[in-house]
């Protein structure tokens, strides 16, 4: 499973999402590679990703993708991240 976290610079909030997504995935027992990236590189980085985690601002700019795009409101709320990831992963 490949998961991409997206923000403006690819090193700030997407880094927080990456760290917390890895924590949640570990708890859920899901094997996944999580990569933080900036919005400018989303098309290439996320081409083969199953899930994209981001904030609402970036949804439109992610454009066409086969990945599930999940919007996280509170990047420190691992319960929110867990709930939304579980729903997406079925």
């Amino acid at each position, binding site marked *: 499973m490949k998961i991409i976290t997206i923000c*403006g610079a*690819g*090193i700030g*909030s997407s880094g*927080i999402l990456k*760290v917390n997504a890895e924590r949640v995935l570990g708890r859920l027992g899901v094997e996944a590679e999580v990569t933080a990236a900036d919005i400018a590189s989303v098309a290439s980085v996320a081409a083969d990703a199953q899930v994209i985690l981001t904030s*609402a*601002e970036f949804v439109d700019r992610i454009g066409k993708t086969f990945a599930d795009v999940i919007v996280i*409101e509170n990047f420190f709320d691992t319960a929110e991240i867990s709930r939304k990831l579980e729903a997406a992963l079925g």
Partner: protein
Amino acid sequence: MPLSQLPESAIDLGANAADWRAAVRLAGAALVESGSTNPGYADEMIRMIEEHGPYVVIAPGLALAHARPGSEVLADGLAVVTLATPVSFGHPHNDPVSVVLGLASTHAGVHLATIAELANIFNDSSAVSELAGATTAAEVRDILGIPA
């Protein structure tokens, strides 16, 4: 370690900011004061938000202002600004903001290490309100677990 120290000059408590740009500038000023960046870094942090929106408000009441590593960054550093009156960044869920963190990193790898440390701190949902209510630099260091 990026969060190995938090000097007095990097902490600005109960500051007054008219709007989000002023709040980010306070974080920029603290990064300059503490020797982390040149003054131009504040402009870069503001440009990031103008370009990409208020996504830096990553949790209720908390903005993580930063720009990319670059020539304006002199040393890895963190600045903590708390606002006397919270300001709106235009975020759909997490406004108003009472705590602005300014983050400067020399390399993307360092940046991610710092971010991981911040995640450890702020995954405790009481950390933002505790920081917002801190009245001394010592309290801030205690909440963040970073020495002077």
